[in-house]
């Protein structure tokens, strides 16, 4: 090739490869590339076909000069026709003249548009054909070796972008699927306070394997589960969905957690599912007897009222999906009021460069130091153990706490508007755990929010002010106290004036005590009655 021809060629190459890097959206990328390719090669038509999921068919994805190919949803089995031949032979194919060719051209569009010459190259990623890129001319053309090489270069870049895009879409689907399989909210029942938190893996493509679930089994019993499916992405999310469905189906019939895991082991074997670890526990909300079985999963942690932590390590068994049908034993404990059972996945304790035991110790420290309230406990534990680390795995935590009927709550939250929703969460949980109805929960949620509003509005800066929330139940009457460090100001603007009537509407009694060191709002309402 002459020197300036070579330079032009180089510039052409840069035009197509630079385009490939700049665009993120696959369809825009293909359109831009096809435009440039037809310019550079002086072609009239260009198209990209991709191999479908079945691995046997090509489908038109983008076209220039042949737009109808995409619109009509053109499909072609690999091996047939021009593009099919390119894909089957994994080689460039040239048809110098369609009118005089032994190669069967299946696409009627070619004749309609009077395409005369065609050059097609395969798109290959990691040794696999993922599609075909072809260009055509309306006048007979003698494609040169340089044209073939250029087109193949473009094809290589396109193939990489397609693969990247496919993985990204799959990753998004996996995430969406997995999120939809996690419970949107946990049941709120008297005597128990529960919370869960899920933190996806730092790298998006690693998402997919962890799940947790809480099922109401009737007769004041709950089924708790947490699990970790091997692998990542869409396959893992689907696998997780299958296990979850099977578990829910068995849960109503199977009393014993050991039996549940044995059935799931058989299920995994039948369905030829890959490995998964899991904990399944049943809880009696009246007696607080907890039976627990474990399939290769990290030990559940029991956090006692005195602040110590014990791992439930007596009962265990192999993971699910080992290729054999396994049997399991189970362990029984009784939770005392104020004690919390913590289920979690190994993303919380596995750290490169540390042993599992070190991870477990860190967990005990974090769990016992964290606030008692399950919602705050879960967040605190995860924050503490994942702070500053890009965790390569998902992390899920489920905390279940036995609430004594006369237990007080005392929490501190920053006086920020964003905290109000969390405060409502906490208050609803507490009221419900102490026998309040949905109406009682809603009533306290709004009254407490109104009581916090003053502190939130007048806090002098983030981190400067704190709200202290207390709750006590006595003789069927709940008293919730909201304390802040600002004075209760006179109604300024409409808001203040409305907050008080709203509180009075929903509470039996409202008392506001504004002092120099702060304001205390006391809200009282009988709860749990019909």
């Amino acid at each position, binding site marked *: 090739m002459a020197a300036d021809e070579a330079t032009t060629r180089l510039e052409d190459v840069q035009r197509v490869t630079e385009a490939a890097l700049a665009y993120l959206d696959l369809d825009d990328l293909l359109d831009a590339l096809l435009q440039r390719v037809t310019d550079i090669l002086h072609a009239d038509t260009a198209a990209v076909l991709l191999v479908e999921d079945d691995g046997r068919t090509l489908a038109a994805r983008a076209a220039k000069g042949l737009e109808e190919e995409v619109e009509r949803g053109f499909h072609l089995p690999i091996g047939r026709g021009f593009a099919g031949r390119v894909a089957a032979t994994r080689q460039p194919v040239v048809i110098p003249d369609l009118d005089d060719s032994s190669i069967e051209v299946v696409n009627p569009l070619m004749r309609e548009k009077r395409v005369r010459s065609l050059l097609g190259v395969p798109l290959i990623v990691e040794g696999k054909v993922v599609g075909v890129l072809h260009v055509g001319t309306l006048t007979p053309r003698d494609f040169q070796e340089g044209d073939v090489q250029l087109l193949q270069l473009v094809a290589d870049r396109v193939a990489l972008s397609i693969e990247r895009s496919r993985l990204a879409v799959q990753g998004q689907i996996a995430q969406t699927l997995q999120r939809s399989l996690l419970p949107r909210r946990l049941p709120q029942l008297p005597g128990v306070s529960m919370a869960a938190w899920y933190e996806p893996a730092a790298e998006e493509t690693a998402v997919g394997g962890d799940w947790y679930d809480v099922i109401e089994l009737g007769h004041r019993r709950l089924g708790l589960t947490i699990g970790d499916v091997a692998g990542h992405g869409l396959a893992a999310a689907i696998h997780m969905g299958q296990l979850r469905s099977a578990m829910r189906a068995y849960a109503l019939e199977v009393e014993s957690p050991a039996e549940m895991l044995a059935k799931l082991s058989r299920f995994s074997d039948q369905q030829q599912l890959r490995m998964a670890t899991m904990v399944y526990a049943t809880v009696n909300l009246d007696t607080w007897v907890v039976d627990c079985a474990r399939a290769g999963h990290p030990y559940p942690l029991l956090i006692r009222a005195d602040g110590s932590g014990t791992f439930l390590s007596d009962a265990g068994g192999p993971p699910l999906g080992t290729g054999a049908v396994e049997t399991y034993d189970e362990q029984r404990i009784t939770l005392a009021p104020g004690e919390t059972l913590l289920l979690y996945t190994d993303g919380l304790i596995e750290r490169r460069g540390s042993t599992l035991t070190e991870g477990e110790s860190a967990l005990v420290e974090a769990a016992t130091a964290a606030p008692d309230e399950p919602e705050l406990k879960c967040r605190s534990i995860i924050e503490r153990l994942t702070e500053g680390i890009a965790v390569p795995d998902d992390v899920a935590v489920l905390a279940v706490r036995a609430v004594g009927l006369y237990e007080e709550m005392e929490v501190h939250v920053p006086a920020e508007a*964003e905290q*109000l*929703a969390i405060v409502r969460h906490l208050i609803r949980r507490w009221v419900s755990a102490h026998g309040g109805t949905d109406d009682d929960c809603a009533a306290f949620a709004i009254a407490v929010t109104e009581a916090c*509003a003053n502190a*939130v509005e007048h806090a002098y800066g983030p981190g400067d002010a704190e709200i202290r929330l207390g709750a006590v139940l006595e003789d069927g009457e709940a008293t919730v106290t909201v304390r802040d460090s600002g004075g209760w100001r006179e109604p300024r603007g409409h808001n203040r004036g*409305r907050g008080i009537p709203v509180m009075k509407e929903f509470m039996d009694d409202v008392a506001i005590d504004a002092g120099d060191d702060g304001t205390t709002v006391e809200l009282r309402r009988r709860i749990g009655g019909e």
Partner: protein
Amino acid sequence: MPDLARLSVESDGDIELARVAGEIDASNVADLSQRLLDAVSNRSRALVLDLTETSYIDSSGISLIFDAAARMRNRRQQLRLVVQPRSFVGEVLAAVSMQDSVPIDPVLGEALRAVGAPD
């Protein structure tokens, strides 16, 4: 963290229909207020604010509604609310006698008919 509330706005001719799903409190009321303001143009005849999927509202949301009502009154535009009568939101609005200032309908169809939306 998912958003506390989702706002969706549609136009049906010169009638704007806004739906709020989720909770309205001090943390998101300013943003919602601005977006509602943006949704109503000078050519709008009415705004129907559908709160049937609103699970929580307090004095901050109430103020948003009263402010919107005043604005629209000045511009001679109608504001109507859709609220299920025996819902939590219904109770909150009743506590401040909202119905004396802003008409409240139990279902969307009635609100649309009241502002004269084409069927």
